[in-house]
């Protein structure tokens, strides 16, 4: 089956204005006006997946999404969604989109706001009357339906934004930093909604820099850095299956055992009788658990730790930065 989103050689170069402002000051730029935001990006998103677009600030995540949604035009390359070129209204009717830090007409009440967007989707009055209360309930805004958006908190606005993105029962949902500015409860709610969308067979593409959340729900991720794709694939492919370290948590260990722990572990944290140790070698960790089991203390937890997405992300980005520094150093030397 053809991917629901297919991106080939997508590039975006911004040319800054000659006269502009920087940090509130007028600035005249005669050179270095070009800024590469995206460089030769190839990406496929398969139907039914949760796809995470990850990367630090300025990586090109939002630029990619803006191009897909027809808000920006690419400098080079092509992209299709549902097999059709970008900007096709029939395709846009099957997409739900939530931009980063969305701003809406704040004089509209929650219900009026969704009604307006329902009209833009071409929904009939009857369809809107049925769908709007369902969505307000889904995002937990039923009680705030008649309050103007200017009275909403940031989290409520984000949920209202999510509701407008789901109005048309979309086949593809694109969310730009949907968890930005939300508290842990709000983040969990967004995660649950994304997982529920997947259960309904929908495709979700979202950008994020909250890696723990991405790791929890994404089927595939793409990692961007300075406009370039540095890794893409299933999480199981990207993250090494190798166990990185073994964590042992113990209570009241014998003095001998504690001395061994301090010698063998690469990290030990002592706190009021509880001791937390990290071992690189499995045999050392197992030796500690065996001695704890034989009465030299109490074993509280034993956790073999695999590389997390965050570890992978930092390793990849740091690697790229080191390469760039080396490249610059080499150029300076010549």
């Amino acid at each position: 089956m053809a991917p629901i989103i297919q991106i080939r050689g997508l590039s975006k170069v911004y040319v800054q204005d000659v006269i502009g402002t920087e940090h509130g000051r007028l600035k005249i730029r005669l050179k270095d006006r070009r800024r590469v935001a995206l460089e030769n990006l190839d990406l496929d998103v398969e139907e039914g997946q949760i796809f995470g677009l990850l990367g630090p600030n300025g990586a090109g995540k939002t630029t990619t999404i803006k191009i897909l949604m027809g808000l920006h035009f690419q400098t080079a390359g092509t992209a299709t969604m549902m097999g059709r070129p970008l900007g096709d209204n029939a395709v846009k009717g099957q997409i739900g989109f939530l931009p980063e830090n969305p701003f809406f007409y704040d004089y509209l009440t929650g219900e009026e706001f969704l009604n307006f967007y329902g009209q833009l989707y071409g929904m009939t009055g009857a369809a809107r009357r049925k769908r709007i209360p369902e969505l307000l309930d889904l995002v937990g805004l039923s009680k705030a339906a008649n309050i103007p958006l200017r009275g909403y908190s940031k989290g409520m606005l984000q949920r209202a934004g999510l509701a407008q993105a789901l109005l048309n029962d979309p086949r593809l949902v694109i969310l730009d930093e949907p968890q930005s500015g939300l508290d842990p409860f709000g983040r969990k709610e967004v995660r649950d909604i994304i997982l529920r969308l997947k259960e309904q067979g929908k495709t979700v593409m979202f950008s994020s820099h909250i890696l723990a959340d991405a790791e929890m729900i994404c089927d595939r991720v793409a990692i961007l850095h300075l406009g370039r794709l540095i890794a893409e694939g299933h999480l199981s492919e990207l993250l090494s299956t190798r166990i990185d370290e073994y964590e042992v948590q113990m209570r009241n260990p014998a003095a001998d055992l504690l001395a061994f722990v301090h010698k063998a572990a690469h990290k030990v944290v002592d706190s009021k009788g509880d001791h937390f140790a990290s071992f690189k070698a499995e045999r050392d960790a197992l030796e500690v658990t065996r001695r704890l089991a034989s009465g030299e203390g109490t074993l509280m937890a034993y956790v073999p730790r695999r590389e997390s997405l965050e570890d992978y992300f930092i390793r990849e980005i740091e690697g790229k930065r080191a390469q760039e520094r080396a490249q610059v150093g080499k150029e300076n030397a010549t």
Partner: protein
Amino acid sequence: MSKIFAIAVNTFKEAVRNRVLYVLLFFAVLILLGAWVASSLAIFGQEKIVRDLGVGAINIISVLIAVFVGVGLVYNDLDKKTIYTIVSKPISRWHFLVGKFLGLLLTIFVNILLMTFFFLLVLYFREYTKDTVLDQLAMDGVQGFSLLVYYLKSAALALAKAFATVLTLGLYNTPVTQGIMEASFLTMLEMTIITAFAVLFSSFSSPTLSAFLTVIIFLIGRANHDLYNFAHLLQHRAGGVENLAGGQFLTYWFSIAACHVAPNLEFFNQREAIAALQRPEVGLYPILYGLAYAAGVLTIATVVFNRRNFK
């Protein structure tokens, strides 16, 4: 079409929440009342003063609404990024622009009708309370409470007549208000062009620059005949374009270019006819000209807007 309508209605809701609109309407009421007061100070030509000032006030306040409310509408959506969630829906960018234009136009039309209604009210009430009538009442011994009742009755009648004139779009009118509805209709046509320019400028520049450019277009449009005549006077004096000296040559071509690029708003100016208590001729030509010109400007706005990256 329903999507354009939805955007237009939403734009109207947005515009009527703009405080600038109410400040301008307040000034309109002040000017219209001022016209009445000013006319009572004049020795002769009172009718002319009231009508001239009234029609002029409606016109100028309409331009100010188009400029100060209009230029911010598209810009605010771009600046606050509201546009992200709108153009990502199954609509084209021109739907958005035309919806904004129609919403703003609806706001201006409603305000023109409100101002016209108030002006008609002033004119009808003034007719009931003009000096000759009051003198006659005094001779008949009407005074005190009876005079107050007469004023209240006049106010009620003026209100009813003003309603009737506006609701029948000028079909019901009396010699006192003759031509006022036609003048308002011509102002609406003129505002159709000015609003299209406000939307065009607002789609690519800041509100301040947009307001400046829209006012310039209005001024050149109003001075269109004069600019044209001025250019030909220069040419005539020099004995031909080829004889014009450097500065004058530039002035000549600037004037010619300006009056060809800017709309000729004199088509919609019938203040003299109305002041002279004549009914202005609203032919087909001003209607076609106004609509075609606005359509042309909106087309340019769409072309500009279609190529934009939204920041």
